[in-house]
């Protein structure tokens, strides 16, 4: 979709902050530098590592002497099945079975940059297939390579890996074949591969990859290859047994928090309530008097000021943390009153970046009679990630070398900022990525690793495992921003939307993030409007602007990012418009989606699945509908709720129709969409972070709960394949869930709730 009044060339001038976050050097240094870097071979992190005993055919394929094939998956496994699907991309080309290989997280290395994340940040919509758009995408990929960002986020892992890892597998296969061809003195093209062997059918004879690997590694790799046609696939496109499941079912020590050494220390942290707030008083003697407490050390970072406690075990460290009884220096009285005032001020001042400005919204409203205008204000709170595995990292500083073991979504950032924090060269800092007990965006930061690194400076080379207690984790998150929307629509007599104006106020995630990274922010923050301003809805007069508020605490990426709040605003307001105009909410959306068939198809599909009749399903039962196109995936959902005799509401059923283009593993895709729905429903039902006297009020799960087993609906997911481009699946399940639930509750009760969480207005069973 081309936005009116803004040519593609014009977009060059409005490159988003998200782009610049990763692209500053490239923009400044120019194309010559870019071209030079991308023409260099990528760093192979396994070259010059003779103690491993493995032969690296390329940064993604290792073959050991014993025949074990190891596939390096350069993205973090946080439950999204990425180790399985990315390994499958290589295995499909290499002709090895998924059950016969080992899969590891790669080291921090620029070889594993994420180009798709950066491409998705470009100011080009995925359905814009113009030449200029292609140029942008290519350029963004180059920028990503130059910056060496190894980040798991933005639902990009599979999209980024799709060509690259298949080519890595094919390159390894053909290079192994070339090695065998030389030995047998035959032409490479006559050879085949199967089950980890090269086969010569004319012999017949065969040789295991392991026997060829060390010779193959010395050859110039064969690179003039195309990945196989999907019609030849035997692994991809089918539901696989996930490679990480057996260890997770066994209780194997695979998470960051499970790191153990024969000799080690344990720690925890006690950080100030807001960034920059220092301790006024701390009872270090009381902490040190507890048997087993070794040290109390000051900690300081862009995230905050405070203390680390080092002890003989985690429980003793937790007790010592309490004993510190820290009083903080803050004069800050920031609370809900100040937050409300900030939003009021932002709306009164108006302005903010204009992310979409189709037609002439102002003149349509100025000519409108008051009765023709529908207006509503919405509000959503701050949210914490609440990963089940609390923040933690293990660090060892020995002989000038720092090793960090942790679950993380950005190992190159962890390496850079931990090295910088300790005054080391990056080459002297190694990051070992463990399994993540949940990420959702929280582990794209580096605070947990930096604190462990700072504490390791005090333990004489002994590793220290630093685990946060739940309260520390909840109160020192990088929160989903609080956001509010002021929405106005002018309706025509025939129920059409003559104009739609949305002001979306929030703090800027990218401004907050770039502040932490020591970079200055400029340009638009696309996350402030995504889920509303970038939707494939066509309206003649449509404006989305984003007034910005300041907040004294850090905000960050929370599963589905801006879509999590903006889809709530957009999809609830469309529901209100439909009710007000006496139109079916599904029909209304279909009428707005002309020109993007995949979106219309998922809406029609979900309507069929749920036997949609406009929302009402009898006296104490109702359905709500929502749609969101996010991370290149179209998702429509219908939530069905019912009410018991005590007015308690149950969420009984969710239907979800989605189109992410090519589906590489249907079971994993369904599981991700289903999990994303539960994540969104939890937030809509019951989650909020509030501030009082300059501190977060919630601490543990008793004050920041999530959906429990008995509250979980049955969930039915249908996948379709009309999109010609691939979309992500880790996040797109989340955005429609909250508005679909709110719309269902409105249909059930007749009362529109415009503020989340819903349990402030209704009671859930």
């Amino acid at each position, binding site marked *: 979709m081309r936005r009116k009044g803004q040519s593609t060339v014009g977009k060059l001038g409005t490159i988003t902050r998200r782009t610049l976050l990763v692209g500053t050097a490239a923009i400044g240094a120019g194309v010559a530098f870019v071209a030079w870097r991308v023409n260099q071979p990528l760093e192979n992190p396994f070259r010059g590592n003779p103690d491993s005993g493995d032969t690296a055919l390329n940064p993604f394929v290792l073959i050991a002497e014993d025949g074990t094939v190891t596939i390096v998956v350069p993205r973090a496994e946080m439950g999204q099945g990425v180790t399985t699907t990315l390994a499958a991309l290589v295995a499909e080309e290499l002709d090895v079975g998924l059950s016969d290989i080992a899969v590891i997280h790669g080291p921090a290395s620029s070889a594993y940059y994420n180009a798709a994340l950066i491409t998705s940040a470009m100011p080009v919509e995925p359905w814009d297939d113009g030449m200029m758009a292609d140029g942008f995408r290519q350029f963004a990929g180059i920028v990503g390579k130059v910056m060496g960002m190894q980040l798991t986020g933005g639902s990009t892992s599979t999209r980024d890996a799709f060509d690259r890892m298949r080519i890595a597998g094919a390159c390894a296969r053909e290079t192994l074949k070339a090695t065998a061809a030389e030995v047998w003195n035959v032409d490479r093209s006559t050879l085949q591969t199967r089950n980890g062997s090269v086969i010569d059918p004319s012999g017949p004879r065969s040789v295991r990859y392991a026997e060829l690997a060390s010779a193959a590694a010395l050859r110039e790799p064969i690179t003039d290859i195309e990945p196989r046609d999907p019609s030849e696939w035997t692994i991809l496109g089918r539901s696989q047994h996930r490679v990480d499941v057996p260890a997770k079912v*066994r209780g194997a020590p695979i998470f960051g*928090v499970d790191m153990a050494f024969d000799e080690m220390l344990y720690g925890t942290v006690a950080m100030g309530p807001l960034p920059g707030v220092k301790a006024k008083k701390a009872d270090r003697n009381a902490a040190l008097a507890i048997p087993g407490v070794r040290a109390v050390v000051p900690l300081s970072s862009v995230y905050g000021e405070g203390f680390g406690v080092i002890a003989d075990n985690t429980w003793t460290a937790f007790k010592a943390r309490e004993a510190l009884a820290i009083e903080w220096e803050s004069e800050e009285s920031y609370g809900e009153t100040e937050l409300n005032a900030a939003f009021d001020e932002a709306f009164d001042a108006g302005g903010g970046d204009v992310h979409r400005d189709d037609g002439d919204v102002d003149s349509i409203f100025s000519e409108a009679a008051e009765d023709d205008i529908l207006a509503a204000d919405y509000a959503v709170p701050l949210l914490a990630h609440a990963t089940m595995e609390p923040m933690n990292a293990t660090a060892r500083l020995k002989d000038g070398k720092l090793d960090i073991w942790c679950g993380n979504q950005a190992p190159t950032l962890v390496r850079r900022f931990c090295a910088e924090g300790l005054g080391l060269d990056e080459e002297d800092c190694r990051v070992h990525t463990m399994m993540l007990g949940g990420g959702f965006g929280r582990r794209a930061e580096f605070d947990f690793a930096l604190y462990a690194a700072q504490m390791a400076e005090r333990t004489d080379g002994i590793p220290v495992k630093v685990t946060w207690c739940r309260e520390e984790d909840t109160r020192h998150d990088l929160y989903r921003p609080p956001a509010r929307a002021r929405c106005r629509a002018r309706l025509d007599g025939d129920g059409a939307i003559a104009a739609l104006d949305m002001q979306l106020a929030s703090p800027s995630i990218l401004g907050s993030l770039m502040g932490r990274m020591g970079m200055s922010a400029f340009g638009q923050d696309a996350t402030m409007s995504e889920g509303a301003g970038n939707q494939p809805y066509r309206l003649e007069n449509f404006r989305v602007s984003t007034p910005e508020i300041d907040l004294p605490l850090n905000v960050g990426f929370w599963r589905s990012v801006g879509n999590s709040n903006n889809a709530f605003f957009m999809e609830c307001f469309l529901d209100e418009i439909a009710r007000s105009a006496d139109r079916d909410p599904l029909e209304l959306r279909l009428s707005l989606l002309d020109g993007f068939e995949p979106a219309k198809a998922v809406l029609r599909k979900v309507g069929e699945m749920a036997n949609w009749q406009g929302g009402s399903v009898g006296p104490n039962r109702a359905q709500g509908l929502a749609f969101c196109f996010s991370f290149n995936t179209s998702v429509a959902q219908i939530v069905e709720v019912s009410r018991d005799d005590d007015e308690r509401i149950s969420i009984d059923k969710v239907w979800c129709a989605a189109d992410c283009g090519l589906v590489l593993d249907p079971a994993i895709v369904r599981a991700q969409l289903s999990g994303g729905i539960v994540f969104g429903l939890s937030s809509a039902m019951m989650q909020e972070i509030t501030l009082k006297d300059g501190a977060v009020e919630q601490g543990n799960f008793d004050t920041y709960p999530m959906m429990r087993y008995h509250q979980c609906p049955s969930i039915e997911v249908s996948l379709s394949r009309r999109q010609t481009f691939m979309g992500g699946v880790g996040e797109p399940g989340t955005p429609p869930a909250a508005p679909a639930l709110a719309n269902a509750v409105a249909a059930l009760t007749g009362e529109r709730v415009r503020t989340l969480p819903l349990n402030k207005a209704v009671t859930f069973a």
Partner: protein
Amino acid sequence: MVKLTVNGQPAQFDVDPEMPLLWALRDVLGLMGTKFGCGIAQCGACTVMVDGMPRRSCVTPVGSLEDASITTIEGLAVGDRPHPVQQAWIDEQVPQCGYCQAGQIMSAVALLEENPEPSEEEIARAMTGNYCRCGTYPAIRAAILRASGQETGPPAANASERTIDRG
């Protein structure tokens, strides 16, 4: 000194008797399968069996367990053979991040030892103390039904499946 058995093996803990069993297992004994989630018995990630009953190890002082018999996730499999509940978890491909799953499995094992064919309501009552942030509850339900012989349909990850509507 507290003496008890863990997964059938005698164990002694020379620690503060107030130390929760969770930390005795993890930091003293080195058994990492039992997980820390909240420390206040809200999330169930630390669930173990004490004398056959499910207990939240994060609030159970080790000093209260003299002579008790503890079973953790590491004690379920027999050699390489997973416990039937673990096998059902594999068949249904339950875990996503996996962090809560040891606690989920221990709660399910405790339920099925007490009640081999639980109704859906009984399953909900037994499992509602175990949080899953990834939202695997529907898969957990399917796995418990499978482990109790009440679900015999095709499992979640079925490699023959290619049921994408190509419309």
